[in-house]
């Protein structure tokens, strides 16, 4: 893996128009589609930007399929719930692609309350030669029409248009934190803090509640659902993680309401690490199945854990992402950083896992060689086509030349969202309002 990382280059650094970071430009989700041809990003302003990979051309062999903007559209607008006097943020929480079945692309995007199915299609031909209207669209005077002709399709500049095909609204009382498309390609689930709903992609006026952990007395609330995902192959299986650090695997065949889990994954807490903030740092921020469907990965504040679906008592592997923060939990609580929800991602072969950290650092762990690396996504430290240099955080004692001490980490620069190409070594990393795409040089 070391060689792989040394050869990693920066492919592109896509910047927004502004030099300053407006809050609306902060990227809130990134996701490759199932082939890796498209990359979608959602931001706090409710916009979705889709990038498409260039076809490799013989003329420019060194430009190995760079990603260019393909489509931009406003997915969600800010709304106001008049009954509760609450503003509903337009921030895109998650984007999930549907597998491609025809020439158009479909994705699901969600904010706190509403899921939308968007169709992204190309138009490169248009009909010309209408009888009743001229090329501008104005209606022709019928008296001037002397002959009949059939409109023909003529090529035009490529236009990519996004249209909302379905709007799944009024399904959730609480804030939606994740969506997951089922392997049956017909249903998907949306998850909020206390409930999980199952939708059919064609039906917007009805959904089925499959998990409900809301207590009858809200005063007895002790945990919330933080993430959920369908199994990649078994359409009846899904998992959901909780704020208490547990994961439940449910089988939809067992009951209509899956409040009783089939498997319960939890690691007993280490009593020596107990502090005021033990509960917060054990809250799971992301859960992802491996591509094989055999393993599960969870991210809590300080660690990433890989679980074997067959072993519920403890994780298979635990990786420390930034354990040097353990002594700084109080400060991180004060500045709200302890509530940051980091995502984690598998590579295509499930051999490497990646997650983000602070100071625009992100970490990769090779499960086979047990080696790990810390990389930085920033313009200052990397030029296009330059090889990424591994970074190191100095924990204590003498600081070496290239190391960064814990105290000089910039906690406002956090990498929460990352995604990995399904088959190649291309990663997309969102650093606040910038998107970085890194690609492996080795062909």
């Amino acid at each position: 893996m070391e060689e792989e990382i040394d050869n990693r280059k920066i492919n592109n650094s896509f910047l927004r128009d502004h030099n300053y970071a407006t809050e609306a430009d902060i990227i809130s989700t990134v996701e490759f589609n199932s082939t890796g041809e498209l990359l979608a990003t959602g931001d706090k302003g409710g916009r979705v930007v889709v990038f498409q990979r260039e076809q490799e051309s013989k003329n420019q062999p060194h430009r190995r399929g760079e990603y260019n903007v393909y489509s931009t559209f406003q997915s969600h607008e800010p709304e106001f719930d008049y009954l509760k006097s609450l503003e509903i943020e337009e921030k895109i929480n998650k984007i999930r692609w549907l597998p491609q079945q025809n020439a158009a692309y479909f994705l699901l995007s969600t904010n706190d309350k509403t899921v939308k199915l968007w169709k992204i299609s190309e138009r490169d031909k248009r009909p010309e030669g209408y009888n009743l209207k001229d090329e501008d669209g104005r209606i022709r005077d019928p008296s001037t029409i002397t002959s009949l002709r059939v409109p023909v399709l003529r090529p035009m500049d490529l236009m990519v248009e996004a249209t909302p095909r379905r709007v799944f609204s009024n399904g959730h009382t609480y804030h939606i934190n994740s969506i997951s498309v089922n392997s049956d390609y017909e249903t998907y689930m949306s998850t909020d803090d206390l409930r999980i709903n199952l939708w059919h992609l064609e039906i917007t006026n009805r959904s089925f509640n499959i998990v409900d952990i809301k207590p009858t007395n809200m005063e007895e609330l002790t945990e919330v659902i933080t993430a959920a995902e369908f199994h990649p192959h078994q359409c009846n299986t899904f998992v959901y993680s909780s704020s208490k650090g547990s994961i439940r695997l449910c089988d939809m065949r067992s009951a209509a309401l899956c409040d009783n889990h089939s498997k319960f994954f939890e690691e007993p807490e280490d009593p020596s690490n107990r502090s005021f903030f033990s509960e917060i740092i054990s809250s799971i921020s992301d859960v992802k199945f491996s591509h094989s469907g055999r393993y599960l990965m969870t991210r809590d504040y300080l660690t990433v854990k890989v679980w074997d679906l067959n072993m519920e008592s403890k994780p298979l592997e635990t990786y420390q992402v930034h354990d040097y923060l353990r002594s700084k939990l109080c400060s991180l609580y004060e500045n709200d950083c302890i509530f940051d929800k980091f995502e984690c991602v598998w590579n295509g072969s499930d051999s490497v896992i990646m997650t983000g950290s602070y100071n625009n650092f992100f970490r990769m762990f090779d499960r086979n060689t047990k080696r790990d690396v810390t990389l930085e996504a920033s313009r200052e430290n990397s030029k296009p086509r330059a090889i990424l240099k591994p970074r190191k955080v100095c924990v204590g004692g003498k600081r070496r030349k290239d190391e960064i001490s814990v105290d000089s980490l910039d906690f406002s620069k956090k990498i929460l969202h990352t995604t990995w190409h399904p088959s190649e070594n291309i990663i997309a990393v969102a650093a606040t309002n910038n998107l970085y795409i890194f690609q492996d040089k080795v062909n």
Partner: protein
Amino acid sequence: MEYKVEAHRIMSISLGKIYNSRVQRGGIKLHKNLLVSLVLRSARQVYLSDYYSGVCLNTQHVEAKEWELMDSNQEKPLTPAPEESLSPSTDCNQNPVVPEDPEVQHTSQAVEDSTDLHSVYSKHQAEEESSSEDSTTDVSLTSSPVTCESQCEAKGAEVSSSDCEADANPATVTEGNSQQPPKAHSCSNRKRTAEKTASNDSPVKRTKVTSSNSSEEEAEEMDTGNVSNLITIFGSSFSGLLTKESSEPEAETEDSDSGSGQICCDQMLKNLNPWSTAIVAF
């Protein structure tokens, strides 16, 4: 002692966060507030347990200590400022909730509400609490330290059978805390001494401080009413977790309100508006 200071600081920060979550765009985030309330609870436990280790050693000085801490807590400002000194004050009747409002009316209201907050904290509602509410109302009108002391004592006693652990009550506890951080401390202090006091003392205190009612059923009803009223109050002014996130608790509070027709509840409802103003000011 360091732990106590640290715990107190964390409690202040947590309350500040809960308050700020009200004004955040996008509504209150249930997950974050739940985590904050858990931290608040942990900090409170440490705060209490720390006090316990000191108090258990010398039972005779319980009242004196209680008095001291009550003073020091009540002189703290409302805003969640970082570490405040624990120097005792002489005036027990300083209104801890609305420092800028010297009206006795508010004082009594604040004291009432603090007792209600108290009941929110403890899962096991005892009649002492409800009865002591009235007693404190009477007491707080005077400014005699001696009276205050007895009031503190009474409050301490009333919780003798209550559970310190606000088990599985993060939301309401949170709401209560957000309103009145110093009250939280005074409640904690009262609770501490209450737990310290042997349970066989409670019947004595019960009869001593009862005013509006003495029956257990009534008291329990009232306690439920207190809790639900708190929810109503917090819901209207705090836009708290319960009432904003779901409509069910609101329905519950309405039901309880109709069920309980106790004096304290009425008084609280009457004084709702000034209290809300105070909270908004906070």
